């Protein structure tokens, strides 16, 4: 593979990693507050659908984005209701949300558009355009730096850059603000937060809602930037890959960037090569597709660096002395 080929692969990896990154950070907020969320997938899907639908009707991708976030937030609210207010099983709630999104996007999509669950293709202002960074054209000719800047970093939709910005932002919120301290505390020991006079319910809802907003970005990016419209089941397991990346990243923002980029890279390879010839061994593309999942299992098994989740994760908070 030559240098330009590598640039192309990396460029593609960045695009594919962006929805994973949004979803992974979404999961990070939720799980750091002690709420497991295997419903990321469903939220991405719901947002992808509603953002595409609204972008199509209004012709304005920003309204589409807003609608996507609202869709995702509604599912977040259900998850919050089930796991915080009614202290239900968070895993089961997540499973339900995934099915709900799978079903409702197609039911409503078919009723609205009659295209078998698709939305019509989005064009013009109904999609996120690609942004050319300043001087991109001017320095394209320079060796090494030119292609890296102009072809790899430049030319993405604004959501890609926003996603990258979310990483330091998340870090800052988590480790440098009062809210972050409380959020981390409520995922470790909610009783400590409660007896300190801070509302556990309020914090957890806040986290779940932030998770909803970020999943909304992930979904809107899928339908209005990466593709031009919604297709049935278009999230295609990304919510679960993001979950895998979260474990891989040990629930930390910067690691999350690394993990999602790695999984994006695997995806990019899989798309580009039907099969990969590695040292004379023929690696089927299906293996590449399965690799993120295999890696996650290996991580979970603790063979490569043990991942310790937040201690109160998955447990509803019940006051006790």
């Amino acid at each position, binding site marked *: 593979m030559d240098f330009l080929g590598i640039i192309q692969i990396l460029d593609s990896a960045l695009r594919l990693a962006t929805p994973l990154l949004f979803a992974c950070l979404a999961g990070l907020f939720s799980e750091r507050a002690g709420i497991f969320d295997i419903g990321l997938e469903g939220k991405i899907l719901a947002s992808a659908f509603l953002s595409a639908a609204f972008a199509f009707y209004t012709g304005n991708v920003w309204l589409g984005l807003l609608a996507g976030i609202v869709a995702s937030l509604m599912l977040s609210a259900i998850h919050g209701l089930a796991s915080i207010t009614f202290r239900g099983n968070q895993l089961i709630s997540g499973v339900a949300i995934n099915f709900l999104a799978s079903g409702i996007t197609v039911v409503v999509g078919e009723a609205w558009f009659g295209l078998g669950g698709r939305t019509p293709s989005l064009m013009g202002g109904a999609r996120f355009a690609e942004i050319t960074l300043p001087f991109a054209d001017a320095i394209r000719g320079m060796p090494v730096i030119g292609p890296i800047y102009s072809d790899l970093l430049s030319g993405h939709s604004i959501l890609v850059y926003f996603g990258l910005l979310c990483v330091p932002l998340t870090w800052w919120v988590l480790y*440098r603000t009062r809210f972050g301290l409380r959020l981390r*505390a409520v995922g470790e020991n909610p009783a*400590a937060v409660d007896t*300190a*006079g801070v509302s556990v319910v309020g914090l957890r809802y806040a986290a779940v809602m932030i998770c909803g907003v970020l999943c909304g970005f992930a979904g809107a990016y899928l339908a209005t930037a990466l593709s031009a419209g919604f297709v049935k089941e278009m999230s295609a397991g990304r919510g679960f890959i993001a979950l895998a990346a979260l474990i891989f990243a040990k629930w930390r923002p910067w690691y999350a960037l690394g993990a999602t980029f790695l999984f994006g890279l695997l995806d990019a390879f899989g798309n580009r090569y039907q099969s990969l010839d590695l040292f004379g061994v023929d690696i089927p593309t299906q293996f590449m597709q399965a690799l993120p999942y295999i890696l996650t299992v290996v991580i979970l098994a603790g063979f490569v660096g043990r991942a310790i989740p937040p*201690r109160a994760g998955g447990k509803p908070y019940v006051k006790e*002395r």
Partner: protein
Amino acid sequence: MTAAGTPPDPDLAIELRGISKSFGPVRANKDIALRVRRGTIHGIIGENGAGKSTLMSILYGFYKADAGEIMIGGKRTEIPDSQAAIDAGIGMVFQHFKLVENFTVLENVVLGAEEGRLLRPSLAKARKLLRQLADDYEMDVDPEAVIEDLGVGQQQRVEILKALYREADILILDEPTGVLTPAEADHLFRILRGLRDEGKTIILITHKLREVMEITDTVSVMRRGEMTATVQTADTSPEELAELMVGRKVLLRVDKAPARPGKAVLEVKNLRVTDVQGVERLKGIDLRIHAGEILGVAGVAGNGQSELLEVLGGYANGTGTIRLNDQTIDLTGTASDARTRRARGIAHVPEDRQREGLIMDYRAWENVGFGYHHDARFNSGIFMDNAALRADCAAKMERFDVRPPDPNLAAKNFSGGNQQKIVLAREIERNPDLLLIGQPTRGVDIGAIEFIHEQIVALRDQGKAILLVSVELDEIMALSDRIAVMFDGRIIGERLPSETDQGELGLLMAGMTGEAAA
């Protein structure tokens, strides 16, 4: 009845009038009145389940009272949540600490009382104040230390600092000495006296009479959800308080004949246990128990007693040798589980019956076979013989006076004492040679305590070897024929009950040997 009309007294830090609280059909607090004078240490004593903790939880906004009013500093105050309690100047140190284990001391202290939205300035300010407070009250804690690296005594100080940082005037401590060595408890009491002399009001919830006598100015006694008396500590005696707590004269001694030890049943040599975190919990235990003898193991909770029971009971891994009736017992491999131990004649009444000894959702009849479910009498062919289990359960309930005697009732619906009777009945059934008993009377009402103690002595007289682990020194003194004191994973000393006293045992429990023990 409380006089709802009397004017508030500003000299009172806290006044409670007619507080009532029910949980379903259980009335945890009935029309409670309490007056706590400013600048005093006020003890509240009572048995398990007397309603002390419920009352304090109401005061801290954990529960809402069904009726009654709370006056703080002479002002009627609503306490709907913990924040309101903090605002009213109340700080609480819970029995189980409410700390974030992987946060630093500083972060824990600041949590919930940050100044401003950004962390850094607020931490910087707190660091200074914390040093000041620590100096003022002799509480030496490193603000940057991570909680999980600290000992329990230090963690408790962090809890007190948390309250002081929030400028609490009233400090409530719930069973604060349960996890402390006597020396640590003394240190705590020094801190508390210092706080009182500064004008703070302290409420101490405990069931230990000695503590109440030592440190409080005033004592209130609770029994079955009611406040039965409030007296000046100087005017009362432990005997009187005990009677007020229980509602009748208490037999503080167990009648038993001197032991007639037979051959050695259990011999343990150099027994070591390392937990999953890699911490060595047992650091070379040697002990021997004879037939017809009760060996009491005393110690502050967390010094290896639980691990000793678990490794003998067959569900913790260890190294060393254990010999039962001159036969070596496997400590590793598939034959080292609890089932094999039972087959060899070791029965075990575990420390925590609700977590280990019983399946709380199983019915009583299902629980009587628990651990013995491989026994032929409970099986027929490939199926379990449920009829045999039911019959066995009914018989045991009759013999041990379990109430209500209903084999179909789930374990969780029995009282603590009756649950313990079910466990005890099950464990002594197969005539074991060695009986391991952990905290036999924890959470058990007085009536059942006497019954259980009698049973244990009766077993000894039948020639069983008994290993008794308890954190209650009174219980150890009353039942044991020999006493071994555990400290930091070792047996630090062995005494005969007739030749020692609680003072000496207390020093041993704190790890002090040599001239102190002489």
